[in-house]
C-alpha cells in the first residue's frame, strides 16, 4: 500500500473522511477532557501522597497507606474491565452509559491514579533541602506547596501531563466498546471487522501524528520551564 493509494482513496471516499474528522474530534475530546479533569483530581492526590509520606511535611502513615492502596487498585484494573465495571457510576454522572461523554468518565477514573503516581514521582525529585530552607524562612505548609514544591516540580509535572495524554490516546481506542467513538474505534470497525486495511492505516497514522504533536509540545514546554 503506497502513499498514492491513500491519496486516490482519499479522493473517492468523502463520506469516510467526514467520519474520520468526526472521530478525530471525539478522540481529542476524550483525551483532553479526561486528561484535564484527571489532573484536577490527580495533582492534589499526588501532592497528598507525597506530603503524607514518612518524614514528609504532613506525615500521616494511615492516610498514606490508604491512599496508596486505593491508587494501586485503580492502577491495577485493566482499562477495558474498568470501562464496563463502572457503567452504573457513569450513568449516574452523565445520565447515559454510551457515547463520547460516557467514555470520558472511565478514562478520567483511570487517569487519576496514574497521574497521582507520576506527580508523586515528580515531587520526589525536589531536593528536601529546598523544603527545609522554606521552613527555615517561615513558610506555612500551604506556601511550601504552592511556592516551592509545585513550581520546582513543574518540569516533572509537565512531563507527567505529556505521558498521561499519550496514554489516554491509547486508552481512548477502547472507548469504542461503550460507543465512545474516536479514531481507535473507526480503526477497529473498518480495519479489523471489515478488513479495510487502508482505513485502519489512516487511523493509525493520524494517531501517530497526534501522539507526536502532544509529545513535542510537552518536551518544548519542559525545556521552557526547566532551569535546573
Amino acid at each position, binding site marked *: 500500500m503506497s502513499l498514492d493509494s491513500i491519496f486516490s482513496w482519499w479522493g473517492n471516499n468523502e463520506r469516510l473522511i467526514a467520519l474520520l474528522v468526526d472521530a478525530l474530534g471525539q478522540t481529542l475530546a476524550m483525551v483532553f477532557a479526561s486528561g484535564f479533569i484527571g489532573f484536577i483530581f490527580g495533582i492534589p492526590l499526588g501532592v497528598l501522597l507525597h506530603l503524607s509520606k514518612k518524614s514528609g511535611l504532613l506525615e500521616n502513615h494511615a492516610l498514606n497507606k490508604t491512599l496508596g492502596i486505593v491508587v494501586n487498585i485503580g492502577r491495577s484494573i485493566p482499562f477495558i474491565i474498568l470501562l464496563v465495571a463502572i457503567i452504573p457510576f457513569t450513568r449516574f454522572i452523565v445520565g447515559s452509559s454510551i457515547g463520547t461523554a460516557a467514555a470520558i468518565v472511565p478514562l478520567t477514573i483511570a487517569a487519576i491514579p496514574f497521574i497521582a503516581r507520576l506527580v508523586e514521582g515528580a515531587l520526589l525529585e525536589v531536593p528536601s533541602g529546598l523544603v527545609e530552607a522554606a521552613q527555615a524562612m517561615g*513558610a506555612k505548609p500551604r506556601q511550601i506547596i504552592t511556592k516551592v514544591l509545585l513550581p*520546582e516540580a*513543574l518540569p516533572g509535572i509537565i512531563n507527567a501531563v505529556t505521558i498521561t495524554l499519550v496514554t489516554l490516546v491509547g486508552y481512548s481506542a477502547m472507548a469504542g466498546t461503550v460507543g465512545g467513538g474516536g479514531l481507535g474505534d473507526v480503526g477497529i470497525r473498518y480495519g479489523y471487522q471489515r478488513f479495510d486495511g487502508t482505513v485502519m492505516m489512516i487511523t493509525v497514522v493520524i494517531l501517530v501524528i497526534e501522539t507526536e504533536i502532544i509529545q513535542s509540545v510537552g518536551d518544548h514546554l519542559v525545556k521552557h520551564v526547566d532551569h535546573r
Partner: protein
Amino acid sequence: MIEIRNVNKVFYQGERAINALSDINLNITQGCIYGVIGSSGAGKSTLIRCVNLLERPSSGNIIVDGIDLTLLSNQELTLTRRKIGMIFQHFNLLSSRTVFDNIGLPLELAGMNKKAIKLKVDGLLELVGLSDKSDSYPANLSGGQKQRVAIARALASDPKVLLCDEATSALDPATTLSILELLRKINQELNLTILLITHEMAVVKGICSEVAIIGDGKLVEQGRVGDIFAHPKTALARQFIRSTLDLSIPEDYRSRLLTEHVDNSYPLIRLEFTGASVDAPLISQVAREFNIDISILSSNMDYVGGVKFGLMLAEFFGAEDAAQQAIAFLKEHKVEIEVLGYVA
C-alpha cells in the same frame, strides 16, 4: 541573643538510641559571630538545626531574642522563624526562580507588596554585589554567587540572627574568604548575631569572636577565640588548632631521621608556641646564648586575638650539650619541645 539550655537530642535507629547532643549549654550575645567547630558526625549540624527547630530537641530550651521557641505552637514558630535567617552548605536556592525572585521569596511569604519587595531586593542585591545577576537563574551562577544569593535571601526579612550551616564547606578557599568577608560586613553593618558551624578552624580563626568545640555530641570547650588558641585545655581543641597549622616532616628528612644521637648528627626539633609561651625573640636569644646555629625547616606562626602561636620545625646545629641546654631554656620559657630525631 541565642540561649541554648540543657539541650539533648536523641535519635533512634530501630531500638538503638543515639545521643546526637548531650546537655548542650550555650549563650550567644547580641552582635557577636559565634563559631561551633567539630568533625563530621560530632553533632554540630544537629545543634544548629535545633536553634530554629528544624530539628526539635528531645529536651531543653532554645531561647532566641527572649522567646522560648520550644514552647511555641507551629503557627507561632513559623512566624518567629522569619526573624531567624539561615544559609546552607548546598545553598538551597529554588531553581525555578530567578536570583531576584529567590531573594524576594521570604517577603512574598510575608505578604509584602511587589513595589516594596522590589525596593528591598534591589538593596540586598547591591549589598551582596550581585545587582547585575538579578534576572539570572541559580543554575548559571558560581558557588560563591549562589551563597551570596542565599545570604541576601536570608537577610530579606531583617532577621536578628543568621545561622550558617557549613556555609563555606562547598566553596574553594578564595571564595570562602570572600563569603567570610561578606558575613563580617553584614555583622558589622547590620549588627546581626551570627552563629556558624564548620569543620574548618580557618573559618573560626577568620571571623569568629567566640568559639565552641563540639565532639561526640558534647561541648568540650568554649570561650573567646584568642583564649582557645592561646590555652587549649582539651586534646580536641589542640587538634583543631594544629589542623590550621599542619606541619609535617619532609619525606627526605624522614628517611634520614635517626632515633638515637650519633656523632655528627643534629637534633630535629618541633617547637610549639602557645599563648603561654614567653613573648620574647627566643630563637635568636638561644642561638646567641648557647652558641648554636638554628636552621628553620618550616614554620607556621600565626597571630589570633592578641596571641602568637604556631609550630616550627628546626635543626639545632652545635655541640650536643649546647643543644640540650638550648632545649631546656626553651622549655623554661614555655615553648613545647619535641625532639623528633637526629639528622646525620
